């Protein structure tokens, strides 16, 4: 039997299909998010099915998650991304106790129990300064690729202090730093530290280990190191970090199906 998860995030739509017999991923896909969220989600889903030779009739259940989940008409149910990310990470890293998820426009911290259930969570979805958007802004300003930020931060000698709580004003700060001759590497390191600092506010003094980092921002090199430095604890990047929400949704679709049949 096949179940699917669709994570309709604010920047990208992700989908995963799993074989419920062995809970293995059999297909996945990703597309940019846009205004017509339902159409984009449907088209992505169809593309992934076609590419992998799967018939829609063979998909027993679909769960949608993420910011735009309510708009995904092909989904049977919706579950929040908090629950889905927890399930997805637990599936990939069963020992995970703390999950840091930083996406394009929000960041979350989840505390899990040993069974992978969410015990507690905190979110920053008010200010873009703690999210992937901030990294995009600095990459644009410096005229570099997002992927190069990690390498640049690693070469920083003296990370710049970014003081604004708002990414719009922080953009002005970055300009100011460039004008004053601050090295680009130091600016990038400062931005990464600023993002990591917001996680500390959510994490408290001692986040329970292992700490797993997921979401699109986890794929930006250097961010895990910045998180580690800020928390003073080891932070590991989740395998396939951008897909954990969709994976969790697919697993939950499978669980819901099993529950319904018993």
């Amino acid at each position, binding site marked *: 039997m096949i179940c699917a998860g669709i994570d309709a995030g604010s920047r990208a739509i992700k989908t995963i299909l799993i074989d419920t017999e062995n809970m293995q991923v059999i297909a996945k896909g990703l597309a940019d998010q846009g205004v017509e969220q339902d159409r984009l989600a449907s088209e992505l889903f169809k593309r992934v099915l076609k590419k992998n030779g799967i018939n829609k009739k063979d998909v027993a259940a679909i769960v949608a998650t993420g910011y735009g989940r309510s708009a995904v008409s092909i989904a049977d149910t919706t579950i929040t991304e908090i629950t889905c990310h927890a399930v997805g990470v637990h599936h990939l890293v069963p020992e995970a106790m703390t999950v840091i998820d930083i996406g394009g426009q929000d960041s979350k911290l989840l505390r899990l129990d040993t069974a992978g259930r969410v015990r507690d969570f905190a979110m920053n979805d008010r200010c873009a300064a703690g999210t992937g958007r901030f990294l995009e802004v600095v990459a644009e300003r410096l005229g570099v690729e997002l992927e190069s930020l990690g390498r640049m931060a690693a070469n920083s000698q003296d990370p*710049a*202090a970014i*003081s604004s709580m708002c990414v719009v004003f922080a953009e002005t*700060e970055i300009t100011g730093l460039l*004008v004053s001759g*601050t090295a680009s590497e130091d600016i990038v390191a400062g931005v990464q530290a600023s993002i990591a*600092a917001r996680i500390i506010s959510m*994490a*408290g003094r001692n986040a329970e280990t292992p700490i797993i980092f997921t979401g699109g921002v986890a794929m930006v090199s250097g961010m895990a190191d910045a998180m580690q430095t800020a928390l003073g604890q080891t932070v590991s990047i989740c395998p396939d970090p951008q897909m954990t929400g969709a994976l969790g949704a697919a697993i939950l679709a499978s669980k819901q199906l099993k529950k319904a049949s018993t």
Partner: protein
Amino acid sequence: MSDIPKRITLQEWDLRYEQLEKAGTYEPDYGGPLSRHVEDGDQRLLKLRYDNSAAALRLWNFLLTEEDRLHQARAAGRKIVGTMKDLGTVPVMAYCFENIVAFYPDGAWWIPCVMELGAGLLEIADSLGIDESFCPVRAMLGAFVTGAHFPIPDMLVCSVGATCDDFSAIAQRLNGLGHPIFWWEIPHRRRPEPDETAVNLPGGFSAPKCQVEFVKSQLERIKTTLEGLAGEKLDERKLSAGIKKANQVRRYLTELRHLAFTAERCPLPALEMLIAEMLAIHFCSDRQETINVLKELLDEVTSRVRAGKGILDADAARIFWVNPVADLQVMNLLEDCGGRICGTEYLFTHALDIIPEDLPPLEALAQMALADPMAGSSIDRAERICGDIRLFGAEAVLISRIPGASHCALEGLVISEIVRDKFDIPVLEIEVPPVTDSMRPTVHTRLEALVETVKARRQK
């Protein structure tokens, strides 16, 4: 007097220090080259500019060695009292005891600036749930957790009531971490009602007698607790003597401020004036040495003024500065932009006014505590600022918002309206976080624009 008064960098100070040493200039035991403090992590010192006088050197060394004095006091068995929020009242009483040293843990708010965030104090505050939406005084929490900046006091005394929310919340958080606090109440100072006996407070405010009595009762409680800590009784004679000593500090500061703010050419930089004023609130953990430091500074400024010498051009724009800055560098920046300080209100004018010596000492202290500009309305505070604008001849007002400070949200509105109504002078509000390096162009533009506006108005 130094040869040519000017502002110099830390590197230039090293050269100057050698000159002063060769000339046999007196230095106290905490003296030495300023640059040695950079090795302790005070990175900000590399970016500041300083007055080049021996008096200023002494002032800076005095400030930057306070932690040493506190540790020495602990080692010598003296009791350390951390007084919080009242900014100038409790230390007057505390220093009457032989065996007590008092200081403000609040002062840790400058550590992130001075150490350029290197101490990690703000991150600790973040982890305790006290994030950047709170005032930078949250660094104090980090200082208590690490214990790396001052010895943990034997007793903490904190005023609440008519105080700012963020400090109150931070202090409660500290209490919640297991630090017992002796809380005392400062009521919201109000004008006396027609059927109430009015008391004229130092500094010009008035309050009903019942409020003075209330504060007196609070100070009695503090006195009793300090007596228990010190193992010593504090009678009226000792308290009066302590008040006289505190007044010595205040008299020097009053004279210094008057000279510095009214002289034709600015005789002392804004940064040194800020540090000097701060000495009033708890004497930098050595009351007698505060008097000595201020005396030397006053002598230097007096001779500069007599000689018509200053550190800035004569046409510098005269700016009245409201609220202390979290980043000391901004005081330099004002002068770089062509401005000079002509009047200040750093939240503690009650620590600068003379404590009445013709009243029973506890009554006098109570009146002084109630004269705290932050304990009353923003309107009162604005009226006092207007009085000082008139006295010092300021041409503009700069209100420096403290990021996250609850009082700044609305009081700036009130103060600027009242000042504009009375004087029709420009009023500018800027926000100054602990490290402004990245915002320097923005802050610079604003200060420069203010100075340009002031100078353009002179031509009309």
